[in-house]
């Protein structure tokens, strides 16, 4: 049974529609990540689930119960905020005891639970401090502690790591993933960091301007994006997009040409378009290989503007025709600052989109990992 179920949910502030027709099922124990650009409605959706924001229309069920009109306090969910939102006048211990006190737990139970939770998060030595005496990472752990101490069904996280520095962010990311495994609770996690989404999620929900663009496992979103938007959003560095035209659609796939006349046949599903239709070719920067590695490959000549040596890999920034392009290549294959480079990509690594951004099914890629 689904732990959290959203049916045709809408949200409007006055006449401004923020979220439209959101349908989503989250089953018990799932780690669901909401991603999307700033302003796409991630926080609003999360806050609606939490009960901090009214639902304009639609139905929200938590644990089989419709909770549209249930107060946040009575939904038995807990939330970790981007700014931690620790009570500044209480010590760490009091902060963590607060949800238990509200639930009218006994003194001894409170003490035991706070102790266990602090131990789990390695913050036992901080229990008597005030929040202002903590570092960012410590505050974040206290905030997580306050959320898990009550053992709620569902945890909500709103960009919990975005105020931390890169190194700490990786550490905390791993800690949250570990916590999810230990506790086995449902977690709904908002981020606009696609690395967090890819690494932590069982299921990613991509939001765009108040609508769900795609829902799927990280693998599916990466290899079978439903649209150019999702393809551009998932994966780092961002996917390259090149304008091209359909030559003909055959049983093997679609034969396309780039503006410079180079052509390739891509293994994609049925295309119901006349030849000559404009399309968009998508290539991930790390799918480029030196030319000559594959039969039927598409080779490109890049005019290189900037070369960045990162140690293990090298980034090439440049252009193919009028389209900007980024390529990642193993460092030993690029030297100095080349003004041009020849690279290639295998047809099965390519993505193809219609001009209005809908993806064509990629046939050469398996459905799942392994």
């Amino acid at each position, binding site marked *: 049974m689904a732990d959290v179920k959203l049916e045709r949910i809408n949200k409007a502030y006055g006449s401004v529609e923020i979220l439209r027709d959101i349908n989503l099922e989250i089953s018990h124990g799932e780690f669901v990540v909401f991603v999307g650009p700033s302003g796409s409605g991630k926080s609003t959706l999360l806050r609606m689930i939490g009960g901090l924001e009214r639902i304009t229309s639609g139905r929200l069920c938590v644990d089989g119960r419709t909770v549209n009109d249930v107060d946040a306090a*009575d939904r038995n969910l*807990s939330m970790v905020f981007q*700014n931690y939102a620790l*009570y*500044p006048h209480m010590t760490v211990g009091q902060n963590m005891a607060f949800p238990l006190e509200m639930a009218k737990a006994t003194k001894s139970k409170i003490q035991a639970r706070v102790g266990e939770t602090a131990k789990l998060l390695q913050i036992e030595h901080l229990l008597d401090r005030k*929040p*202002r005496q903590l570092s960012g990472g410590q505050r974040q752990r206290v905030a997580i502690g306050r959320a898990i101490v009550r053992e709620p069904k569902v945890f909500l996280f709103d960009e919990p790591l975005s105020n931390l520095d890169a190194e700490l962010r990786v550490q905390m990311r791993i800690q949250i993933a570990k916590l999810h495994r230990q506790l086995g609770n449902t977690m709904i996690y908002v981020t606009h960091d696609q690395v967090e989404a890819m690494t932590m999620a069982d299921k990613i929900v991509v939001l765009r301007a108040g609508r769900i663009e795609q829902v799927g496992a990280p693998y599916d979103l990466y290899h079978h994006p439903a649209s150019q938007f999702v393809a551009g959003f998932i994966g780092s560095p961002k996917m390259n997009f090149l304008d091209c035209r359909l030559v003909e659609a055959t049983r093997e796939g679609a034969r396309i040409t780039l503006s410079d006349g180079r052509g390739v046949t891509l293994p994609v599903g049925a295309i119901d378009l006349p030849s000559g239709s404009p399309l968009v070719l998508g290539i991930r920067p790390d799918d480029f290989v030196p030319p000559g590695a594959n039969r039927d490959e598409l080779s490109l000549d890049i005019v290189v503007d900037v070369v960045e040596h990162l140690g293990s890999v090298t980034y090439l920034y440049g252009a193919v025709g009028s389209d900007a392009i980024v390529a990642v290549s193993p460092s030993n294959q690029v030297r100095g600052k080349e003004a041009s480079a020849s690279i290639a990509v295998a047809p099965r690594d390519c993505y193809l989109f219609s001009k209005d951004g809908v993806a064509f099914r990629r046939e050469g890629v398996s459905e799942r990992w392994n």
Partner: protein
Amino acid sequence: MIASRSLYVRLALNALVLLAAAVLVFPLVWILMTALKTQSQVMAWPPQFVFTPTLENFRVLFDAASAGATNYGTIKIDFLSPIENSVIIAVGSVIVSVIVGVPVGYVLARRDIPYKEDIAFFILGFRFAPVLLVVIPLFSVFQAIGLYDTYVGMIWVYQVVTLPMIVWLSRSYIEDIPRELEDAAAMDGASSIQIVWRVVLPLLKPGLIGASLLVFLLAWHNFALGLMLSSAKAPVTVALLKLLNPGVQFYPVMAAGLVVTMAVPVVLILLGQRHLERGLTFGAVK
């Protein structure tokens, strides 16, 4: 920039500062000196700056029973009851304003209600209006309904002075408390009342103590309301005026009364100084 200022400019600037300080301090020093002199010393010309201080004036002020036996002739002053009146009225006004004003400030800070800014500005508008605007119509009303010269009536009209300040200050202090703290408390299972009681009020406390002090001083210094709407329950500011008897001018006693009147706010400010600083909310966010 500072280094390039010439010596003369610096001297001139310092002199200006000294002058300003002297202008501000002079009346206070003068009053204090007058309060410690005898009537004849006060009247002496040229003014005496070296004299033997006396506390006689303070005795006259408070010792109602034997006040007649002074060298001022037969005067009878009871300065203690106006102080009592002022304390009751000012403290009462602050308490009523806090009880009424903080919830109003909370609503104005947090809730979306129609015409919110207009309501807020209307409340603040009382700070701009001359107090007499309220007093003149109230004079006859108060006499008619028996509120004239009562503590209840006085505390009620003093709300004109104290309530707008409490509403505005508490609104801005509440706006400084991150909303997420209330959201967090709601998620933690706290009811609205528990949120206010356990989270908002403790964070509001330092600001509220400061605001109450400020408003107490406003009430303490008010003159017009007491003058018009009280006689036996008149506050200390009005009692001071009554010392200005057209027949005998006992300046030193008046000065002593002034010193006492000023001492209350000075002591309060010294005691409450640390509460006037806020900063408890630091650490909540970021």
